[in-house]
């Protein structure tokens, strides 16, 4: 079994709403696991007969193959009244779990990949924003990220300049906060929870906590599935499949500072499951 520091992290392994007694067979970092509900209805995750530590939070069941040193990261907005919580459902992607997270942190692709929804030419410029590795929380943060968007959310009715904050609280999870059209002053929360099946294969579980009293739940799910499926064909065609941590291998610009910080943080923490350390 891998000795990677990622072994002790929490990972999403299923939707709470779809738990059943039959159990679902899946995998975590190459190990077969089974996710089921126990006789008392609680979630139970096992790997070759061994019962794994489990949490039930943010619409998902979380498990770890190792001994988690930390509690599952907090998303305070998950307890805020008035938000709608959206289980978007799983999508499998043939790419490194780390590539999936990095793509989520990127805005420069919006005009080309999410054309006429999250971006459009000629509004391609990425303004300077702030990035830091918050040592106290041990998280990567990007703030004051602004981008022009033709249809920023399901509820948006025209183009606006959206502001984003990005947060990486765990190696395969990211939480983004974005301008909330119906509620100025609040942030919509959109997450990407990634279950690493193998170094080059992952199940992605997007989840959202939104202020939107207009759209149907199905509309909200479809909006996010649309966005993610546009990314999927990109993620499956990046070479190499693993995320290169060698700085000489790919070329970042100022627009990529979040990704630069993410890669640096992964390397520093020894989070290398799904990474490629040496240039090839």
């Amino acid at each position, binding site marked *: 079994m891998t000795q990677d520091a990622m072994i002790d992290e929490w990972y999403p392994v299923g939707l709470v709403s779809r738990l059943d007694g039959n159990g679902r067979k899946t995998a975590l970092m190459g190990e077969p696991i089974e996710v089921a509900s126990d006789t008392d209805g609680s979630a139970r995750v096992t790997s070759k007969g061994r019962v794994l530590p489990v949490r039930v939070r943010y619409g998902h069941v979380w498990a770890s193959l190792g001994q988690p040193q930390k509690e599952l990261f907090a998303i305070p907005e998950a307890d805020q009244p008035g938000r709608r919580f959206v289980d978007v459902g799983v999508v499998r992607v043939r790419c490194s779990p780390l590539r999936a997270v990095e793509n989520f942190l990127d805005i420069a692709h919006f005009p080309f990949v999410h054309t006429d929804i999250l971006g459009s*030419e000629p509004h391609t410029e990425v303004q300077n924003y702030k990035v830091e590795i918050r040592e106290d929380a041990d998280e990567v943060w990007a703030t004051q990220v602004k981008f022009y968007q033709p249809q920023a959310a399901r509820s948006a009715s025209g183009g606006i300049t959206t502001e984003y904050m990005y947060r990486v609280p765990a190696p395969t999870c990211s939480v983004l906060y974005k301008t909330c059209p119906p509620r100025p002053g609040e942030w919509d929360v959109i997450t990407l929870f990634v279950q690493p099946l193998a170094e080059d294969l992952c199940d992605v579980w997007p989840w959202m906590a939104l202020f939107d009293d207009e759209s149907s739940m199905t509309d909200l799910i479809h909006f996010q599935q649309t966005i993610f*499926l*546009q990314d999927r064909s990109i993620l499956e065609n990046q070479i190499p499949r693993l995320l290169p941590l060698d700085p000489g291998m790919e070329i970042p610009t100022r627009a990529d500072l979040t990704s630069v910080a993410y890669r640096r943080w992964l390397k520093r923490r020894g989070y290398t499951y799904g990474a490629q350390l040496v240039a090839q």
Partner: protein
Amino acid sequence: MKLYDYILSPSCYKVRLMAALAGVKLDIRPVDFHPGLEHRGPELMALNPAGSIPILEDGDLVLTESSAILVYLAAKAAPDWLGGDAAEEAARVQQWLSFSGRLTASLGGARLHEMLLRPGDIGALQAQGIAALRELEAGLFEQSLRGQRFLVADRPTVADIACFPYVALAPDGGVSLDPYPTIRRWSRALRALDAFIEMPGIHRLHELKPEPHIESGEA
């Protein structure tokens, strides 16, 4: 006309695409296919006991099966898309509409397996998908020898719309489109049509718009 629709369904996309090309406005009723499995719930099963979407409602008429829905839209709003009624052309349209069912079963099955974790024999689905793509490539190549860019004529018909989505999305199911030059040209010709619309997984042909001249907003 009301379409019971799932945004990631290539079969539903056929209907949205045909409607866009024919200039028909659809009233979209989104179905929570994944993760909700709403198409297997009582309301939709009552409309279509087969448990599949798309389903089209027009007044009292309820239509299932995407090929039938394409024919209905074309007959109502864009008869050119039905193909000519000479014996051979009419038969060719039917041939490719039937063939499209094999694309759904093979490439569509592989896509559901690889993307949404649907059980299935992935090796067999992909092999059947490749066999179907080769057949389509050969058919389109022979058409090109006859000076025709589309499946049954030198203009697109419902047959092209029935085949295009599962083909374009074959890579979602782990089936490469790299080896098919004629399919690539056909797909491009369809994507370049006026009023063409995409679905997730099919990117915009950005070259159809000129490169914008951008001024930097920064100092």
